[in-house]
């Protein structure tokens, strides 16, 4: 099973699940950001796997994977900027303590 499309898709699914778990379980904003990156990498793995195993999708797959990497980079930039802004105000990266508006 190690050389089939399904194996890679299952691996991507497991990576995605680990990323989602990390996002839901971690309370540090930076760790949550890293978990989202893991999820996006899982997506990229599945895209590249589709491209590698289905000949007609090869060229498309490479282009889509590159686009996803560019978008992920842009997203991290914005995210880190916001984390820095809130760290200056609150002096903590823990999201549990961002509760000024909870009623």
């Amino acid at each position: 099973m190690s050389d089939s499309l399904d194996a890679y898709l299952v691996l991507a699914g497991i990576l995605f699940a680990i990323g989602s778990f990390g996002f839901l379980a971690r309370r540090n904003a930076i760790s949550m950001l890293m978990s989202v990156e893991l999820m996006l990498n899982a997506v990229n793995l599945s895209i590249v796997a589709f491209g590698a195993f289905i000949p007609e999708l090869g060229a498309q797959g490479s282009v889509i994977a590159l686009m996803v990497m560019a978008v992920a980079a842009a997203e991290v930039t914005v995210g880190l900027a916001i984390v820095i802004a809130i760290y200056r105000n609150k002096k903590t990266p823990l999201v549990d303590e961002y509760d000024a508006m909870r009623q």
Partner: protein
Amino acid sequence: MTFEDLTTIAPLILAVLSAAAVLIVDLIWPGRSPLAIATALLTLGATAAVTIVVGQSPSTAFGGAYTVDALTSFLDVLFIAIVVLTIMFAPDYLLPRSLPVAEFAIVLIFAMCGAMLIAGSADLLLLFLGLELMVLPGYLLAGFHKSDSYSTEGAIKYFLLGAFSSAIFLFGLAFVWGLTGTTRVDGVAEALSAIIAGDAPLSPGLAMGLAFLTTGVAFKIAAVPFHYWTPDAYQGSPTPITGYLSVGPKIGAFALILRLFVEALGPLSDVWLPVIVILSAITMTLGNLVALTQDNVKRMLAYSSIAHTGYMLVGLAAYAGGQMDGLEGLLYYGAAYTFMNLGAFAVIAALQKRTGVTSSLGTFAGLGRKEPLLGILMALFLLSLTGIPPTAGFFAKATVIVAAVEAGGALTVLAVIAVLNAAAAAFYYLRIIVYMYMRDPESDAPALRHGALMWGGLAAATTMTLLLGLLPSALLEIVTDAAKAIATIP
């Protein structure tokens, strides 16, 4: 790339150039906000004019990846209107807090470019890029008051859940692409029709892809139970930006639904219809119930915007149930909701011209006597949000609900739930009106003087709110054409 391709994407090019023009003007004459606003409004006006001209003749560009039809130009003009009104409402709020107006306009126009890209996408990859281009500036806008802890707190919640949902959406997109073998929207629809024609059950990969796409989109339109980011992001953001966030990204995400679910996943409508019905019912019910208990008007309107998402989903469900009117109702609702909701947020922004004024209900006490004109306008927008004739909100609600009744079956139940919800929603909207006219003001502060731009924007929002209620036929013709452009049922 041919010359025809360039004329087809001319509205997008002009939109990007508008942002660039404001950027350059601000670079040469820094800090001159009236100049930056004038540049933004002029260039956006030109963009709107070109959008309407290009929209006269449907065309496609780049081998079918981008398409201009009646739906594209309707949505594009709506997005431009949203951004123009937001730019008009913003200076009264931003300037007293020494926030830069030019940067605000630039980021906002870039977000609009993303929304316009979604409206014309006929390709899954373009849809995703448009979505990201629309939401990334949105995160920045939510945290625009970066020294304010509420604003940054709203921004981080908006960002984290937004990035999470983008990843989920993209995972679904990857599977739909991999298993149908094409990124083109019409190609996906053909492949799916062929797959379900054999009466075979959906393959696990495709079913999972569909589930992930639905979840990702539900986050973006703030449907219950994926709405947790909404109240904090809306309450924390600077008020004019809350107004934008409650309509711009929401209509943009509905544009994504129209292109993705109605067009690409149209053949699977039997599979996603029950999900949409359930999402719609719990979204409007929970949105309205929680809104009843809120004492902060911005937070109340955040929950109300969740409820309005539910009403719009009624239109989508009615369409999937076989009624063309549902799609028309959804588009009409989007336009009506834009103007009444932006108007309501503009009144709050106008009151907050005096720094330190909160958005609690007490701010509205005695407003009807202190600032009679602002009080009347707020009352009008709230009545329209409630859905009282002869305002835009009434006609919008009526079209989606009638469409659901005509579709029959489980959708009749959904229509009944929508009517009950509209009645319950009246309580919290009218509560603000009671505060405005039957309570004494909490402070002796004199009435504020509002800028000409603010009054101009309010006049435009009021005109549209009344016009869409009194003369619905004009817009109805446009949305019928727009709906026909993507509908697969007669």
